[in-house]
């Protein structure tokens, strides 16, 4: 605690750069997963390669990816773009299967109804299918958010500042408090982001806030009595 208080300014700076690095991959992996998830469902033969591929990408050790990526995309090693691209790849690996599942599990009756009412295809996808897959997509984004926040720390090994810098520095200097501070802050940041996403979901998907079963039953009774 004392350690944290004495180094508050620096830690705040790390926190800020940590967030700057974590947010773009979270957003990007969502934006990429939606069309890819749609493809995986639309074309059956694409499903297995896409989903297995996603699973395997997740198995790439992060350190070499961070080092090899700049060679491939032609950036400098310490460019934040590397971290963002690498973490987007990992995020996509987590997000894609969930997106595909979410879209596949949308109640076909609702889609059928939308079609029967005369929704054109694109509008149907954007205003019916996507929102109805919302809860699963949200679950996916939450997992991605948590794991991305945690993965950003690996960048510290390459000298990209984040809460992970507290690990590398604390380790070299043998300061346990510094490492523990880093771990706790990373977890807290991840869980805060997660909480925010849950709130966002409540706001964007009001229909998922079901009323208690009891009132529903009372409605039914009231209707029968009416």
């Amino acid at each position, binding site marked *: 605690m004392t350690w944290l208080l004495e180094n508050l300014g*620096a830690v705040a700076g790390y926190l800020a*750069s940590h967030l700057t690095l974590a947010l773009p991959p979270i957003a990007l992996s969502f934006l990429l997963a939606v069309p890819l998830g749609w493809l995986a469902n639309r074309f059956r033969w694409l499903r297995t390669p896409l989903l297995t591929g996603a699973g395997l990408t997740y198995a790439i050790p992060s350190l070499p990816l961070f080092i090899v990526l700049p060679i491939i995309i032609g950036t400098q*090693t310490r460019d934040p773009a590397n971290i963002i691209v690498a973490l987007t790849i990992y995020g996509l690996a987590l997000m894609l299967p969930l997106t595909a599942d979410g879209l596949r599990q949308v109640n076909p009756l609702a889609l059928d109804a939308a079609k029967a009412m005369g929704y054109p295809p694109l509008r149907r996808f954007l205003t019916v299918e996507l929102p109805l897959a919302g809860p699963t997509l949200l679950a996916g984004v939450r997992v991605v958010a948590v794991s991305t926040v945690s993965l950003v720390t690996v960048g510290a090994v390459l000298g990209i500042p984040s809460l992970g810098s507290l690990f590398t520095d604390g380790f070299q200097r043998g300061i346990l408090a510094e490492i523990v501070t880093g771990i706790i802050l990373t977890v807290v940041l991840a869980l805060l982001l997660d909480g925010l996403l849950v709130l966002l979901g409540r706001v964007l998907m009001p229909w998922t806030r079901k009323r208690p079963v009891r009132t529903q039953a009372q409605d039914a009774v009231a209707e029968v009595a009416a």
Partner: protein
Amino acid sequence: DPLGTAQPTTGPATTAAGGGGGSLTVGSQQYYSNEIIAELYAQVLEKAGFSVSRQYQIGQREIYLPELESGKIDVIPEYSGNLMQYYDKAATATDPAEITATLAKVLPAGLRALKPAEASDQDSYTVTQAFAQQHGLSSIGDLTKAPQPLKIAANSEFATRPYGPEGVQKAYGVTLELVPVEDSGGPLTLRALTDGTVQIADLYTADPSIVKNNLVTLQDPEHLILPQNVTPVVSSKVDDKAAAAIDAVDAKLTATDLQQLNAKSVDEQAKSADIASAWLKEKGLL
């Protein structure tokens, strides 16, 4: 210490056009000791009227040297032997003066090395006091008196170094078994030594834990181990005035000084900026 800087490095350096001496970017390795030295340079440069931006904890050589070459960084504290080997894998120089001479030749255009300090921070064969006494050890060659093979904790690349197991076998007849630990002489390596997992550890000579734990660093009469004197590498933006300021620091930086600076960071958990300014004031440089 990354925590000593007013604002930690995020993104590219802000090289504000300074008043008297222009603006310079000082970088450091991802190594607290290196950051303290960088901070020494930064503070004297500021005193000399330069506006300095700091880019600390930039990973390892393969990451920051390209940035130095491309002009994103102007000053970085380096270590002579490894720097030479980075640019010339076949270099054979082993004593400090030769290395300085070679460096001048192999550094890419636009970069130059300033005068090395007395202080160095190099690999070492370090054993515990008890082990040294038990077998009467003072130099690497004495290790033959202990039962072979001996275990040494070091980074994995130790195996490929001239002063690694093969070199030592050839030069001193000592048989070593490498236990790879990837923390570059950090707490894991130290602990492996003190808890008896290994008999020898490759610690850096400026590591304050050597003094703290009463460890014994073995002599290297055959000069297998490359000297690693603190050597600033600078870009062409560093003019004579700036170079003079930096030289003044290195002229006073001794091996003991460096160990003490490091000890302050590790034991007192002080920030690099505070450690640096205290030392500079003590030496009358600030």
